C-alpha cells in the first residue's frame, strides 16, 4: 500500500477519476519517447562534436566549397582561354559583360522605354524597338555586350521588363595587331577565323591558354614599315613576314589592309583577306634563289658557269626578256645580282624539268602548306608541267605561291638546309636542337653557303642595295612580277617584293615584304620594282627589329665590304669574269 502512493491518491480522490490515471500513463509514455529521441540527438551531437569533430572540421569546407562554388561543377561554362604573344602580351581574352534583353509582357511603358533606349544606343531604330517591345514574345535581345556605362544608363530607365544576362565577350586589346593570325569569334564566342577557329576545342572546351610565336613589338614594327611603304607608293595592299629560319617560328606576320578583330564586321571583306597565307601570287625573281640552288645541288653548278644573256631567249614560241638587261654573257653571281631572267631560265633548263619539280616540291612550293590557321591557300602550279614551265618557273613566272610558302622555302635554302616548317604556336618544350633533329635535310651545306654568298652579293652589289643595314650583313633577293589579269601580264600593275636574311654569315631571321601594285614616285625615280619598294622596307624592318630580336651588329671596323672579310667578297672576281678561252657557255 505504502509503496504505491499513486494508487493511494487515486483511491483517495475517488474511483471516478480513472481517466486521470490513463492520462498520466500517456504522459509518462510521451516523456519516454521524447527522452529516447533526445537521447539519439545527444548521441549524434556527441558523435559529431567530440568523436568526429576533427574529421568533420577538415572535410566539410571542401564539400561546401564543391557545392557552392559559383564556377565549379560540370555544368558551369568554361572561360575561353586567353591568347598571348611569345612574351606573354595579351592578344585575346574573354571578359564578362552584361547583355540587355527584354520581356515585353512585363514592360510597363513601351514607348517611353524605347525612346530612352534609343537615346543610349543611337544606332537602334525607334520603330523596330517599339515593335519588339510590344510583341507577344517573352524574350528579345536588345543589345549584347554592353559597356558598364551603358549598363548604368539602362538601369536608370528602371523598367522592370528590361534585364541583363552575363555573357563573355572576346576582347582583343592589341587591336589590329596580328588580327589575321589571331582571328576572331562570332557574337556567341565561337572562333570563326585564324587561331580562334583552328584551336576552338582547345580554347573553348578546355579553356586553356595559348602562346603564339608572334612578338607584338616586331609585329608593330613590321606593320608600321609596311604601312609606310604602301602609302609612299600608293599601293593597294601588302604582306610582310618575319620568320626565325632556324626553327620556323613566325615572329611577325602582317597583311594590309587589316581590320580590328573587336569589330570584324565593320571592315570590308578585302581587309579580312589574309594576303600572307591565302593569297597566292607570281612572286617573280625571288624564285631565282631556288633555281640557282637547284643548279648547285642537282646539276653540279659552279660559280664561274656562264650563261648567254646577250639577247632574249627563244623557246617553244615564247620569248624571255631581261628586265635589267646586261646584254652579255653572265656568270652565276651576275645572273643573281642583276636578276637576269634569261640566265635563270637557262639554269632551270640545265637542271631539267623533273629534277627542278622535285627540288621545288622539297622546298614546299608545289603543295598546300601546313599551318596552324585554317586560312591557307593552295599554290597554282601549271598542270601539265611543260618544258617552258621549267624555264619560267626558274624566274618565278607561271607559278603562284603564298608569301608564307616562299618564306618557308627561303628558310630551307639559307637556314641550315633542313625542311623547316613555319609555326605559329610557341612550343616552350622544344629547344632549337630538338627541332633540328626531327627535320629532314633538303639542301646540302655547300649549296646553303653558296646561296648565302649570292644573297649577300645581291645586297652589297646588286638590285637589293636599299635593304642593307650597316652592321647586320643583310642578304636578300628582289622580286618584281607583273600581275596576270585575264591571262595577260599587265605592265603597270606589279607585285614588288624583297626577301632579306640577316645576319647573312649565320642566318637567324628572314624578312619578306610583298607589295601589291605599288606606283613609282619621285623619290624612286618612278620605279616601283622590288629593289625600290620592298628592299627599303625590309631594311627599315631589320634596322628596327634586330636589336629587339637580340641580333648583335658586327663591330663597324669589321663590317666593311672592302676589308675582304665579307661573305660576298669571294664572288667579286666572277663579276665581269673573263674566264678561260673557249670555256663552255650555256645558251
Amino acid at each position: 500500500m505504502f509503496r504505491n502512493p499513486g494508487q493511494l491518491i487515486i483511491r483517495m480522490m475517488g474511483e471516478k477519476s480513472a481517466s486521470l490515471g490513463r492520462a498520466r500513463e500517456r504522459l509518462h509514455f510521451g516523456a519516454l519517447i521524447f527522452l529516447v529521441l533526445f537521447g539519439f540527438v545527444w548521441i549524434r551531437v556527441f558523435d559529431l562534436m567530440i568523436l568526429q569533430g576533427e574529421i568533420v572540421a577538415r572535410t566539410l569546407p571542401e564539400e561546401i566549397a564543391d557545392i557552392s562554388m559559383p564556377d565549379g561543377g560540370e555544368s558551369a561554362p568554361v572561360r575561353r582561354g586567353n591568347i598571348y604573344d611569345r612574351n606573354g602580351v595579351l592578344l585575346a581574352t574573354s571578359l564578362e559583360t552584361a547583355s540587355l534583353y527584354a520581356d515585353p509582357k512585363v514592360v510597363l511603358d513601351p514607348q517611353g522605354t524605347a525612346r530612352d533606349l534609343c537615346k543610349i544606343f543611337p544606332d537602334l531604330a525607334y520603330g523596330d524597338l517599339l515593335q519588339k517591345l510590344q510583341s507577344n514574345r517573352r524574350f528579345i535581345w536588345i543589345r549584347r555586350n554592353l559597356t558598364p556605362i551603358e549598363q548604368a544608363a539602362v538601369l536608370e530607365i528602371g523598367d522592370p521588363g528590361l534585364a541583363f544576362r552575363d555573357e563573355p565577350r572576346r576582347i582583343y586589346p592589341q587591336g589590329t595587331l596580328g588580327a589575321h593570325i589571331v582571328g576572331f569569334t562570332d557574337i556567341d564566342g565561337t572562333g570563326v577565323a585564324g587561331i580562334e577557329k583552328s584551336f576552338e576545342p582547345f580554347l573553348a572546351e578546355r579553356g586553356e591558354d595559348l602562346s603564339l610565336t608572334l612578338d607584338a613589338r616586331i609585329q608593330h614594327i613590321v606593320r608600321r614599315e609596311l604601312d609606310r611603304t604602301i602609302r609612299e607608293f600608293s599601293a593597294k595592299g601588302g604582306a610582310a613576314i618575319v620568320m626565325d629560319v632556324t626553327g620556323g617560328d613566325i615572329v611577325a606576320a602582317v597583311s594590309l589592309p587589316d581590320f580590328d578583330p573587336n569589330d570584324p564586321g565593320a571592315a570590308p571583306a578585302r581587309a579580312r583577306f589574309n594576303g600572307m597565307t591565302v593569297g597566292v601570287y607570281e612572286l617573280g625573281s625571288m624564285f631565282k634563289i631556288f633555281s640557282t640552288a637547284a643548279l648547285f645541288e642537282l646539276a653540279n653548278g659552279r660559280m664561274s658557269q656562264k650563261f648567254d644573256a646577250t639577247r632574249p631567249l627563244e623557246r617553244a614560241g615564247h620569248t624571255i626578256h631581261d628586265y635589267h638587261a646586261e646584254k652579255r654573257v653572265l656568270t652565276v653571281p651576275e645572273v643573281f645580282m642583276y636578276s637576269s631572267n634569261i640566265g635563270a631560265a637557262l639554269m632551270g633548263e640545265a637542271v631539267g624539268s623533273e629534277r627542278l619539280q622535285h627540288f621545288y616540291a622539297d622546298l614546299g612550293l608545289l603543295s598546300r602548306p601546313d599551318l596552324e590557321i585554317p586560312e591557307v591557300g593552295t599554290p597554282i602550279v601549271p598542270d601539265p608541267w611543260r618544258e617552258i614551265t621549267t624555264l619560267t618557273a626558274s624566274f618565278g613566272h607561271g607559278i603562284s605561291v603564298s608569301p608564307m610558302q616562299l618564306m618557308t622555302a627561303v628558310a630551307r635554302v639559307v637556314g641550315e638546309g633542313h625542311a623547316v616548317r613555319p609555326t605559329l604556336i610557341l612550343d616552350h618544350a622544344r629547344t632549337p636542337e630538338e627541332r633540328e633533329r626531327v627535320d629532314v635535310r633538303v639542301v646540302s651545306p655547300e649549296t646553303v653557303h653558296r646561296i648565302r654568298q649570292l644573297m649577300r652579293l645581291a645586297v652589297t652589289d646588286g638590285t637589293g642595295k636599299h635593304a642593307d643595314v650597316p652592321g647586320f650583313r643583310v642578304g636578300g633577293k628582289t622580286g618584281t612580277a607583273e600581275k596576270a589579269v585575264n591571262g595577260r601580264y599587265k605592265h603597270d600593275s606589279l607585285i614588288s617584293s624583297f626577301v632579306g636574311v640577316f645576319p647573312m654569315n649565320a642566318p637567324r631571321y628572314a624578312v619578306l615584304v610583298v607589295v601589291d601594285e605599288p606606283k613609282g614616285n619621285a623619290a624612286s625615280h618612278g620605279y616601283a620594282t622590288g629593289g625600290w619598294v620592298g628592299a627599303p622596307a625590309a631594311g627599315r624592318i631589320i634596322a628596327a627589329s634586330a636589336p629587339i630580336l637580340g641580333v648583335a651588329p658586327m663591330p663597324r671596323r669589321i663590317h666593311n665590304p672592302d676589308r675582304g672579310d665579307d661573305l660576298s667578297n669571294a664572288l667579286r672576281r666572277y663579276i665581269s669574269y673573263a674566264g678561260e678561252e673557249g670555256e663552255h657557255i650555256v645558251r
Partner: protein
Amino acid sequence: MRDNNNRSTFLRKSLLYVVLALCAAGTGGALLYASQEVREAEARLARLHRATAQEREAIHVLEAEWSFLNRPERLERLAAERLDMDPPVPKTLVHSVASLPEPLKPVLPVVKPAYLPAPRPAAQPSPTPAASSSQASFRSLLNKLSSGETETGGGPHVP
C-alpha cells in the same frame, strides 16, 4: 509520515522534470546556435566566393586594360611625345662586353706598394709637391680622356 513521503516523491519527480526540461532547452538552444552558426558561415563563404569571383574578373579586366595601354603603337607615340630618346640604331649598340672600355684605374693607388716608405705619423702632413703632381696627372688624364684615347682598351696608366 505519508505526507512526508508524498512530498519527497513529488520533489524528486519535479526535480527530474526540471533537469530534463533544462537539458532539453539546453540542447535545443545549442542546436539552434549551431545551426545559426552554420548558416552564417555558409553565407560568409558564399560572400567570399562572390568576392573572389569578382576580384578574379577585375584582374581579367585590368590585364586586358594593361595590354590595351601597352600597345606598341601607343607606347611609341608617348615616347616620342614625352621622352627625349631615339630608337636604337646599330651605331649606338654595344657589340660585345669586350668593346666596352676597361674601368679606369684609380688615380691614387688604393694599397701602397711595399717599396714605399711606411706611412708617416699623422702629425707630419705629406709635402705639397706630391699633391700637385697627383693633381697634374689627374689633369693629364682628363686631357687624355677628352682627346678620346680610351679606344685602345685599357685605361690610361697613371704614374
